[in-house]
Every structure is written in C-alpha cells, then in structure tokens.
C-alpha cells in the first residue's frame, strides 16, 4: 500500500464538500495561490497544528478529513489580518467559519473547549438577550473542568463593580429567543 494520497479519489470524494465550503463562505478556494502571506501574519499560527495556508491547500485538493480535523479552524481568532493582506482577496476566516460549521454538523470538533465556549456564549445570549459574562465564565470553567481558572481575578472584578451578580433583564430577550427558535427551525 502506498502512503501517498491519491488525488483523483480525494477530489471525487471531496468535491461536494469543497463546494459546500465555498457556498457557506462565499469564497473560491482556487483563488488561493499558496503564497503563505496569511500564515505569515496570523497571530495564532504558531499555536496551530496546520498552517492557515494549508487549510486552503486541503480544500484545493478536496482533502476534507484534513480540512476538518485540525485545531487551526478552531484557533482562528477572526482577527482578519489575513483578509487585509491577502493578494487574492480570499476571506479565510469565512472559510474557517464554514469549516467549523460543517465540523460541528458532523460532530468532528477537534477543539471541543473552544466550541464549548461559543455554545455557552450563544446559550447565554439566547437565554437573556444579553450576555452575562459571569455566568459564561462560571459555566465554561465548570463544563471544561477548570473550575478555578482565573478565580483569583474574580473578587477584584466583583469589588470594582465589573461583575453583576444578577443577570441584566431586557425585554428584548423574548425576541432574541424567537430569533433562535426560527433559526433552529429552518436548519436542515
């Protein structure tokens, strides 16, 4: 057996997936000519397991497994530095968004805690219309098993009036809940 990746099969298997990424992101993966400027400017690149450029290379070849199963798509901070500098005007963060959405759909989340954070965030917004940072942090620490992360900082914040004990109330909350509900309803 050869260790080499067979590209026609990869493409046959992955073409649909690539098209879905292109639809969700509004980007054309063929636009990228692999210059690496995105990776060069990415603040998170050093902590990623594959370079941002390589995400596009995977997509160009239809390698969906590689494109989805990595930490990179989760570590993208959406800082848009790459977009600002890309000579081919590829919006890589939009592609990252699309890949994360597909990864979630397929249950293939490599950075579960990052995803957990986003889920809790949105759950909080859904619940109260506005974000309750205390509950988000507590919930995240609880669910991610790092109960006392940053605990040292909490009292000071509390004393300085930065943390509300009771969540804010807004009459917009109901409307937000409806938005979420309608959004959920139209999901395939």
């Amino acid at each position, binding site marked *: 057996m050869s260790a080499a990746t067979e590209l026609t099969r990869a493409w046959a298997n992955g073409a649909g997936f690539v098209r879905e990424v292109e639809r*969700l992101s509004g980007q054309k993966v063929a636009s990228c000519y692999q210059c690496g400027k995105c990776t060069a400017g990415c*603040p*998170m690149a*050093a*902590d990623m397991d594959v370079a941002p450029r390589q995400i596009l290379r995977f997509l160009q070849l239809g390698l969906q497994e590689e494109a989805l199963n990595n930490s990179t798509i989760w*570590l993208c*901070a*959406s*800082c*848009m*530095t790459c*977009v*600002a500098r890309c000579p081919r005007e590829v*919006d890589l963060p*939009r592609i990252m*968004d699309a890949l*994360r*959405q597909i990864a*979630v759909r397929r249950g293939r989340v490599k950075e579960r*805690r*990052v995803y957990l*954070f*986003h*889920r809790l*965030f*949105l759950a909080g*917004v859904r619940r109260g*219309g*506005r*974000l*309750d*940072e*205390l509950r*988000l*942090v507590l919930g*995240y620490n609880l669910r*991610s098993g*790092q109960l006392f*992360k940053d605990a040292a*900082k909490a009292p*000071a*914040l509390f004393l*300085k*009036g*930065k*943390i*509300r004990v009771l969540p*804010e109330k*807004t*009459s*917009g*909350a109901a*409307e*937000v809940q*409806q*938005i*979420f509900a*309608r*959004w959920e309803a*139209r999901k395939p």
Partner: protein
Amino acid sequence: MKIAYYPGCSLHSTGIEYDLSGRRVCQDLDIELQELPDWTCCGASSAHVTDHVLALALPARNLALADDLGLDVTAPCAACYNRLQVTRHELAHDPKLRQEVEELLGRPYTGRAAVRSLVDLVASVGEEAVRQRTRRPLRGLKVAAYYGCLLVRPAGILQPDDPENPQGLDRILAAAGAEPVEWPFKTECCGASFALTDHTEVVTRLVAQLVDGAQAAGAEAIVTACPLCHSNLDMRQETAPGATPLPVYYFTELLGIAFGHSAAELGIGKHSIDGTQLLAQHGWSQAV
C-alpha cells in the same frame, strides 16, 4: 448631535469604565446619546462561528431598533461596532440574505441607520473641538494608540484611513495634548476572543508582544477603544518581578482627564493594572 447608543454587553460589565467615560466625554462634546431600548447582544464571534445568517440576525435586530428611532447608531465596543457594520454592509449588498434575516427577526429591516464607532464619532466632531474642550492638555504623556483588529478590519467594509497604520485615535489623543508614539503593532491581534477559553497562553504571548512593542516605542500607556482589548491587555499582562506593568486606558478615559474630570469619575480606578498612579504623577487625578 443626537445618536442612538448601543453599549453592548461588555460595557455593562467588564467594560463599565468605557461606558462611564464615553458618556461623559460625549456630553462634553455636545453629543447626545440615546440608548437603544431593549438592545440585545450582537452575537460576537460565537455567532459567526456557528452560522452566518444567525450572526447577521443578532446585530440586525439592534440596527432595526435604531431604524425605529430614526437615528444613526454608535457602538463604543469595537466588536459590536464591527458586527453591526459588517451586518449592515452584507444586508445592503445581498437582498436574499436580507430577506432571510428579516424572516428570522420577524420585523422589517431597512438599513437606514448608519453605524459609527465611538472613535469615529469623536473624530467627526473634530480635533479642534477636542482641543477647545481640553482644560488640561495631557502634555508629556506618551501613549501607544492601539486599534486592534475590529476597528480596522475588514478594511473594505470598515473603511479605516489606513488598515495597517491608522491615525484616527492618534489624532484625537494628540488633540488632547498627549504624544502618541509611532509603533508597529497598532492593529495586531491581542487574542481577546480566546481570553476566556483555555488557550490563555496564546493570549499571554500576544499581549506580551504588544506591551513590549509599546514600551520599546517609549509609550507609558496603551490606549484602546475596545472593551475586549482592554480587559485582555489589562488582565493578561505578565510582568517580570520588579517591573511595572503598562497601564491600559480607554481613549475616553484620557479625554475625560483632559476635559478636566477626575479619575474616579471616569472609573479609572476599576482597572486591574492601576491607572491612577500615572495620572497622579502628572497631577491629573482630580477634577478641574
């Protein structure tokens, strides 16, 4: 001038100083802020990580509220500003998307209300107005104006003067008498979106790069216009034993000082890294 005010979630908690000082400064500059009634969260990055349409619907609701008021809207938080502006842009250019979003909202969306950042808003009043309103120029205060990501990118939508080397914040601070330093990391990411996750080591590294850069350029303080950047820089600076950390201010705080308010009034005492000491050294702590 009258404008709708969208504080966003952070300004009601970790960014409360920004809210305090922002309102105060606007008042001084004759900008009347009318807080959007029943505003809700913009969804921030968690929404667009999850779904593009949802990520547009959450800000769109707030834009629709401004529409109802018949006012343009300002968002001091760079993240909120970014979401609102991007949403407005996308919905203006994609009727189909706009229809989808309206369906989710259950209310019409016109896109009439324009979105402005607080920096932009202050700048639009004019450097001259700032200069005139300044009671005690921040003479000799060397600051590194830090814009971060969300005020300048995506440049095509946000239209900053220069996405790699913006000047708006620098000009306002200079008008108030401060000395903005030239430094290379004005728009580098601080990693705030990971501040609350377990990738804090990345965040610490990015913050250190910014702080080192500002210090190398001779700055005594970093000035931000974003509550996420602020709390990140304020809380994640790791200083070597014996070294003093670099205080981090909202630009509205420094304007407030220049305009003659006291540090306490502006909430400067609420920082993690003491921001009052530097002001006290210059004799600017009290109101004049």
